[in-house]
């Protein structure tokens, strides 16, 4: 099983790297947000899947990443994408710590509502304070340089589907590996233990709130990296990124792929983005079908697509 997973991961990565030579530029501009969401969901699921805390406000950190990229590139003139990622990630962690300090005192639905409240607080700040944030139009995001290289000879699409795409897939691989190490470290085990039985793990010496605070901050960092990529892809950071329905979409992706599995949310991100864009192409009533899909997943396949795949795998092997 373990080697099978390893092979599958390497094959998927190779496929992602090979995609631009197979697919048209249009589809690559679709894969790019999927990669961005995959990175954000790696972080989101550290909190949701492994720590057992459902945040309904993580769009806040995606928005911090996006606005971070916007402010750094168009207002402060910082070009280096590495610097943009680090600074907006740091901003997201700084925003996450006070929220986490308050929220980790709660669990379950109260945690969800509190994070939603903070998300909406940030959204109304972005939306209403026109002078600072550009209001409903948001802020433009300029093209960054990658490792100091500006790729001046490429036009916008060529840059996005070319160097930027490879860069982001590489980032997904690196951040995915780091997250894999995090969840399999003693720290990750602490999180899982406190999810399974908070009181018992406290008796055993797990500093539940502190570890949850750290997990919250890490997840905010990942979401900000995803948000920065999203913003560069669209060239714009706008307040809708922080809206509560966007947080809902993050949860949707995690459940669609299966949050009990490390790779589930990644599968969910890719499936969601393609499902959404295909549905939008077919009908203007895509929300209805998206909602229906979610109901089917929640009611019939609560372990998500990966869970479904695992069931099929075991059934095949038994025969």
């Amino acid at each position, binding site marked *: 099983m373990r080697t099978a997973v390893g092979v599958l991961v390497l094959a998927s990565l190779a496929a992602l790297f090979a995609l631009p030579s197979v697919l048209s530029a249009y589809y690559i501009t679709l894969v790019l947000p999927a990669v961005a969401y995959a990175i954000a969901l790696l972080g989101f699921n550290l909190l949701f899947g492994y720590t057992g805390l459902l945040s309904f406000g993580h769009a806040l950190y995606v928005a911090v990443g996006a606005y971070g990229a916007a402010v750094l590139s168009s207002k402060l003139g910082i070009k280096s994408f590495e610097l943009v990622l680090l600074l907006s990630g740091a901003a997201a962690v700084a925003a996450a710590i006070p929220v986490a300090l308050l929220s980790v005192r709660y669990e379950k639905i109260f945690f969800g509502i509190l994070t939603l409240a903070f998300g*909406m607080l940030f959204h*109304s700040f972005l939306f209403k304070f026109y002078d600072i944030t550009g209001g409903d139009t948001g802020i433009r995001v300029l093209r960054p340089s990658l490792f100091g290289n500006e790729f001046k000879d490429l036009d916008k699409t060529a840059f996005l589907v070319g160097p930027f795409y490879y860069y982001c897939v590489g980032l997904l691989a690196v951040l995915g590996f780091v997250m894999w190490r995090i969840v399999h470290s003693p720290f990750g085990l602490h999180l899982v233990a406190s999810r399974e039985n908070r009181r018992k793990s406290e008796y055993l010496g797990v500093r539940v709130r502190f570890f949850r605070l750290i997990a919250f901050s890490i997840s905010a960092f990942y979401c900000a990296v995803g948000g920065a990529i999203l913003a560069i892809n669209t060239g714009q950071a706008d307040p809708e990124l922080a809206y509560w329905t966007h947080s809902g979409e993050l949860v949707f992706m995690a459940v669609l792929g299966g949050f009990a599995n490390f790779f589930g949310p990644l599968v969910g991100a890719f499936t969601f983005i393609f499902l959404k864009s295909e549905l939008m192409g077919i009908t203007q009533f895509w*929300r*209805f079908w998206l909602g*229906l899909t979610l*109901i089917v997943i929640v009611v019939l396949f609560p372990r998500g697509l990966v869970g479904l795949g695992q069931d099929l795998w075991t059934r095949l092997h038994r025969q």
Partner: protein
Amino acid sequence: MTSFFDIVLGGVFHAAVLFLVAAGLQLVFGVQKIVNLACGSFYALGAYFGISAVNWAIAAGVPPALFLPVLVLSGILLGAIGPFIEALLLTVYKRDEAFQLLLTFALVLMFQDVLRYFWGANPQQLGDIATQYGKIVVGTLQVPTYNVLVILASIAIALGIGAFLQKTNFGRILRATAENREMALALGVNVRVMYASVFTLGTMLGTVGGALVVPTAAASLDMPVELVVEAFAVVVIGGLGSMRGALVGALIVGLMRAAAISWYAELEMLAIYLVVIVVLVFRPAGLFGKAVE
């Protein structure tokens, strides 16, 4: 003086409508322990359906002055969707909260397109039908009669729910079920029927609230998602599951919103959510909620 009075009246009017939706949310949370994100969708559905119902009624020869009963009736009739949605929620009662929340989130997405399908993407309005009822003039102060009627209707509904929960047998059984489901079940309460009726009542409160607001505001597709955040603020300030909390929370949110809009519009939602966070920090269970662990 006049402007201050207008702010208070506008705030109380908004609070009256918010209370109805929040009361529905509280009722469902109190009994089923489900936070229904789709409460805003019921509200918007009530608003759109109310517009159509009044237009049909007028076309069928009902005197326009009777639009208020028509609106209330349309809201109550719409409550008929309650049992069907409850039947869907039935599948997740024993599951993790994440699934319950996501199921109602799926309903939000679906209702968004149901509204778009039947009423189109443009905001709908009922025209200035509310002026039919004229104004109440006290000295220099003027109040639209319709707004006063809605406030009175909301107070009547609040008292009605209170009496229903405290004085009737059904209400007592309902509270007992909310308190201890297993015990109620063991004592022979038909929990299935209880859940379906509670959810239907909760739905009706939302749809009636939406129907009552359309004579004064347009119905738009942003309505459901925007109302949810306000209704959430109300129940968090008041305390999840508490009816008195819904009342006080609605007044706080309604008045603050009205005050913020007229004095410093940038602060509208920000002010409300600051209150939410302050309440959660100092009184995590809300003003009237039961303590949480």
